[in-house]
């Protein structure tokens, strides 16, 4: 029998659970745990410079690796600083366990120093949370936390740990729990066969079908199956922002992504479809535009592991509750040996789609002329070329995020790492940090803007400490581009607080941390700068790329309209 203190149990549990990295920041209530982590060397602790970055780094790690991220923060401000990162993970269904120190049990409720009811604060943005009430519970509670975070529809789990629970003087028996049993939590493992059969019949009979797939395919590790199914049928597919890469974008059947700034052909195809096969997507408002005008002629098959996602905003005709991978596999076996009922209709459908594609070809943006200020779109295209479309790309939020998603071509899942649901500025850089540590030999690039980058730029210091060689491409338009775009469109170009006065000299700032910065002003400087930046995989390089502040993101769906109602440029609309 092994007797361990609560703190040692935590360190030991993390080892037994196979946790490689824990991102965190110490403080009074977490000190026993920090001491226990210090006395072992299997779990690597990464000291961030702000707790929000710890959660984003763990989140990035989780998205890229498919394993749950792990965070350790102290009570009070440590925990509240983590809140934005927890909400980010929650909105995108990312598995994460956040261990929060708490004031000692006898002080709880007394407004003690650095006390916050973090379980209460995070309640609406976690999959579940626990408070440790006795040190002996620790192994079981942690096992449940990791199990809940990673299974079913994944999400963040908070574990609140009062300081006395980790006291070195109190020791209890430690046994690593191999299994978890929770009577109230049994995530579905497969879809209803009858429903799947019904769906496949509809799929085979469809005349204008579109697959619409989301993050559930990525987190559900179902991309291969999806690709097989879609290729077998020869149907068009569009993905959500979160689903980018779940089907190779370079393939002809992929129409790109859909929604507010999605591709013209995706949105047009959705609007005119007679069958939508939604898998692991949640019909959110950035996809559907006005739900009352959404896809008026389509029947909807909706596959999701979370029943509450089905018929939440748009009524499904055939709901299937189940994990994407098993449902897709079952669909593949049912489709095999069957011909589609209307091949001639599918040919016609593709002619129509190819027509939409041809309509917009080469008209998406106007490249800069020699000597002119760069267009952000061409910068992203250059990044894609230089990294051969194989990098892990993280983004922050705003115009640069949309440009990154539009102009970098992703053929693999988990490669575009972006805060789709919450839309968290400041996400990209710490997320890139978390990814790079797990994939040191891959290119990891954070495409950001000068607004977003300044929200988490203190993490340069963390990168310095651990030698994290991420690349940062700062699309510097000296303004909050997306806000400015909306102000141009809706507020007669009154740019209320959307421009950044007093920007730092990024070059000097980066050099102050001992890293290389390259400033890019024109097209001829761009590719050489990128080549130089990506030459050494282990060196952090910051590219400050000055881009056109007047550029807008198009297409852009017209608010309250249908999927097909889009602005296509500053002067054209559908």
């Amino acid at each position, binding site marked *: 029998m092994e007797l361990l203190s609560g703190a040692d149990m935590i360190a030991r549990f993390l080892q037994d659970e196979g946790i490689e990295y824990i991102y965190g920041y110490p403080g009074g209530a977490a000190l026993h745990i920090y001491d226990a982590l210090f006395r072992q060397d299997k779990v690597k602790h990464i000291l961030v410079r702000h707790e929000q970055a710890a959660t984003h780094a763990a989140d990035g790690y989780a998205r890229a690796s498919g394993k749950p991220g792990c965070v350790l923060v102290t009570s009070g401000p440590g925990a509240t600083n983590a809140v934005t990162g927890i909400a980010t993970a929650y909105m995108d269904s990312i598995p994460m366990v956040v261990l929060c120190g708490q004031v000692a049990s006898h002080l709880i409720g007394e407004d003690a120093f650095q006390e916050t009811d973090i379980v209460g604060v995070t309640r609406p943005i976690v999959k579940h949370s626990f*408070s440790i009430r006795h040190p002996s519970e620790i192994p079981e509670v942690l096992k449940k936390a990791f199990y809940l975070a990673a299974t079913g529809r994944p999400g963040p789990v908070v574990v609140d740990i009062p300081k006395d629970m980790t006291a070195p003087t109190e020791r209890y028996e430690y046994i690593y729990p191999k299994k978890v049993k929770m*009577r109230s939590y049994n995530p579905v493992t497969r879809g209803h066969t009858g429903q799947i059969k019904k769906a496949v019949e509809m799929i085979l009979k469809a005349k204008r079908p579109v697959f619409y797939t989301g993050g559930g395919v990525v987190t559900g590790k179902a991309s291969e199956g999806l690709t097989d199914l879609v290729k077998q049928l020869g149907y068009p597919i569009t993905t959500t922002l979160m689903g980018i890469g779940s089907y190779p974008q370079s393939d002809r059947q992929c129409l790109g992504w859909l929604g507010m700034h999605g591709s013209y052909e995706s949105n047009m195809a959705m609007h005119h479809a007679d069958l939508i096969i939604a898998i692991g997507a949640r019909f959110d408002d950035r996809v559907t535009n006005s739900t009352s005008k959404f896809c008026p002629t389509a029947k909807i098959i909706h596959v999701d592991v979370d029943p509450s996602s089905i*018929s939440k905003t748009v009524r499904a005709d055939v709901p299937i509750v189940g994990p994407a991978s098993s449902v897709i596999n079952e669909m593949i076996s049912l489709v095999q040996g069957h011909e589609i009922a209307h091949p001639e209709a599918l040919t016609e459908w593709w002619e129509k789609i190819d027509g939409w594609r041809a309509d917009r070809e080469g008209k998406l943006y106007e490249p800069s002329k020699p000597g002119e200020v760069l267009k952000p779109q061409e910068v992203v295209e250059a990044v894609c070329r230089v990294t051969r479309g194989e990098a892990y790309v993280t983004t922050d939020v705003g115009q640069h995020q949309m440009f990154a998603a539009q102009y970098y071509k992703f053929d693999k899942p988990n490669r575009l790492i972006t805060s789709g649901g919450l839309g968290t500025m400041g996400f990209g850089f710490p997320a890139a940090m978390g990814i790079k540590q797990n994939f040191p030999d891959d290119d990891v690039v954070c495409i950001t803007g000068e607004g977003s980058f300044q929200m988490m730029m203190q993490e340069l210091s963390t990168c310095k400490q651990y030698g994290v060689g991420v690349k940062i491409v700062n699309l510097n338009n000296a303004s909050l581009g997306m806000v400015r775009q909306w102000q141009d469109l809706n507020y007669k170009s009154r740019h209320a607080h959307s421009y950044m006065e007093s920007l730092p000299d990024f070059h000097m700032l980066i050099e102050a941390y001992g890293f290389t910065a390259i400033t890019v002003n024109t097209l001829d400087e761009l590719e050489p700068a990128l080549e130089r930046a990506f030459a050494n995989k282990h060196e952090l390089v910051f590219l400050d790329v000055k881009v056109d502040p007047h550029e807008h993101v198009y297409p852009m769906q017209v608010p309250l309209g249908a999927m097909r109602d889009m602005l296509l440029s500053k002067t054209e609309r559908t």
Partner: protein
Amino acid sequence: MRHIISILLENEPGALSRVVGLFSQRNFNIETLNVAPTEDPSLSRLTVTTVGDDRVIEQITKHLNKLIDVVKLVDLTEGNHIERELMLVKVKALGAARDEVKRTVDIFRAQIVDVTPSLYTVQITGDAGKLDAFLQAMAPVGILEVARTGVSGIARGDKVLSL
């Protein structure tokens, strides 16, 4: 439409706040809420009455089921059921009104459970409609205080909500 949803909930600290929080967070509505432990000390039974169309009720039950602390739930209004609420009311009972109150209490098959020279405390059980009717009948006399438990309910017949 009004629905009565009965929930078996883990008897854990914070479990109730997850249920209540869900309603406010998702813009659902709670009309009444009633909660107490069951014969199994690890479980609480919670009954909530809510109003919404089919789409909203479907979302409410799905989101409730998603809460880790919710073990099982049933929408009692989907079948035959019994619903009861208990109410304690203090009413003025002076002069002629004293007899009038006593008569009304008998008509409603309620009970007077406490008496002072100037008021009666009445205990009444029934469905929400009966309790509302009693309050309406007492209004002219003078209602001083009302304490209602909120609706509790159970399915009729062989159906049982248990693990």
